């Protein structure tokens, strides 16, 4: 690679420094009339073949570019871990328990409207997918969970989701007042043991 003629070096540097692809005449303007530009180009093309950089011709104009097969390393992906918003978690839960479910149904269950972005986030995360339209007035689009959802949450199937009875037993379904009271009693009990 190091043994390279002055003509080739000149053409190489000119193409490298140029902001645009150059044709032979433009190259000659830089390197001078004594240089066989065509020969230098063919030598360069040969020398760079298979490297990370390639010399390519496009419509009689030449330029260097990175080898196409390396495009993936030039675009680096970076993952930013982000926690789902409360609205997203609730929406996801409703989809999981009620699928297939329309947006209006989700809102009815939540008691709050959901923003457009909420379902987008869940679909971007790969946990929710559109699941066809319901044969009902307005033919609303419905949503369902994906295999990715099961994988992420370590579930074999949707049947593994705790049912309403389980939730009740775990205290997750109690009205808030009662839950608070229960919490208070738990605290008293544990305090009592200490004293």
């Amino acid at each position, binding site marked *: 690679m190091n043994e390279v003629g002055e003509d080739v070096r000149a053409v190489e540097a000119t193409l*490298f420094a140029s902001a645009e692809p150059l044709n032979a005449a433009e190259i000659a303007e830089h390197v001078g009339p004594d240089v066989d530009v065509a020969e230098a180009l063919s030598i360069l093309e040969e020398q760079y073949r298979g490297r990370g950089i390639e010399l390519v011709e496009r419509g009689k104009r030449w330029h260097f570019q990175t080898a196409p097969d390396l495009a993936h390393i*030039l675009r680096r992906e970076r*993952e930013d871990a982000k926690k789902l918003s409360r609205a997203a*978690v609730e929406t*996801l839960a409703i989809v999981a328990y009620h699928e297939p479910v329309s947006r209006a149904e989700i809102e009815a269950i939540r008691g709050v409207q959901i923003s457009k972005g909420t379902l987008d986030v869940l679909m971007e995360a790969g946990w929710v997918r559109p699941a066809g339209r319901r044969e009902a007035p307005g033919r609303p689009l419905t949503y369902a969970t994906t295999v990715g959802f099961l994988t992420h949450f370590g579930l074999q199937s949707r049947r593994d989701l705790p049912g309403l009875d389980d939730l009740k037993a775990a205290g997750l379904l109690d009205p808030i007042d009662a839950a608070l*009271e229960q919490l208070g009693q738990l605290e008293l009990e544990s305090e009592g043991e200490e004293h």
Partner: protein
Amino acid sequence: MRGSRFAHFRFARPRRAPKLSNMFTDADFEGAPRVAEADRLTLDLDGWEGPLDLLLTLARTQKVDLAKISILALVEQYLTFIADAKKLKLEIAADYLVMAAWLAYLKSCLLLPKEQAADPSPEELAVRLQLRLQRLSAMREAGARLLGRDRLGRDVFARSAPEGLRVVRKSAWSAELYDLISAYGAIRARNEPAVHIVGRRPVMTLDEALTRVERLLGTRLEWAEIRSFLPETQDSEYRRSALASSFVATLELARQGKLELDQQSAFAPLYIRAA
């Protein structure tokens, strides 16, 4: 104090550049200043970069290494130069005159017999001046050498149109199963019709207290603290309720003339006995 005298001089940048210059008016800063003959130093509008700059230019006319320069001769050159400028009625910035005054002083010290010389010695002051000139000269040359290097964008070129490297940000969403089911529980709970049940709290009613105090009063002869009338219980809430009710009961019984109250001071134990 070493060098204290010199330190008194601050070289203020002239408000207007002194109208003294030399043959290299078109001085190309990318090259080292050319050496000029003292007598060819002409006066014109281009400024000097301060008295030290003028001194350095004059020093170069001696055509010797700065380390071997004759300070006495340099002083002479500077003073002559300033005198000529004065003759031509050119405006001379104060710091050039200050330098001139200091150099005149240095010259007289250098010419004095050694024994009368002060501390710092004039020789040391001369060496200091010489060092300053050397330092400035070194930096001037270094600057010229830097500018003469193969500079990116002038002599060597980076790629003009790089494809560029890109970082694509992707969000990795995270949530736990617990978050999911507790959220669902919360939604369902929100929508359940709430049933409010008021729990029974252990209390002693006023009627109960009246009956109780009146009955116990009959069994006591002497003053007794009100607390001794309360029922024995582990329930602190019930005890507080009993105390409150019994207190109101004693007030009622006192009003009816059935008992007497005695308390030494506020919050002191309250004693009662049958009237």
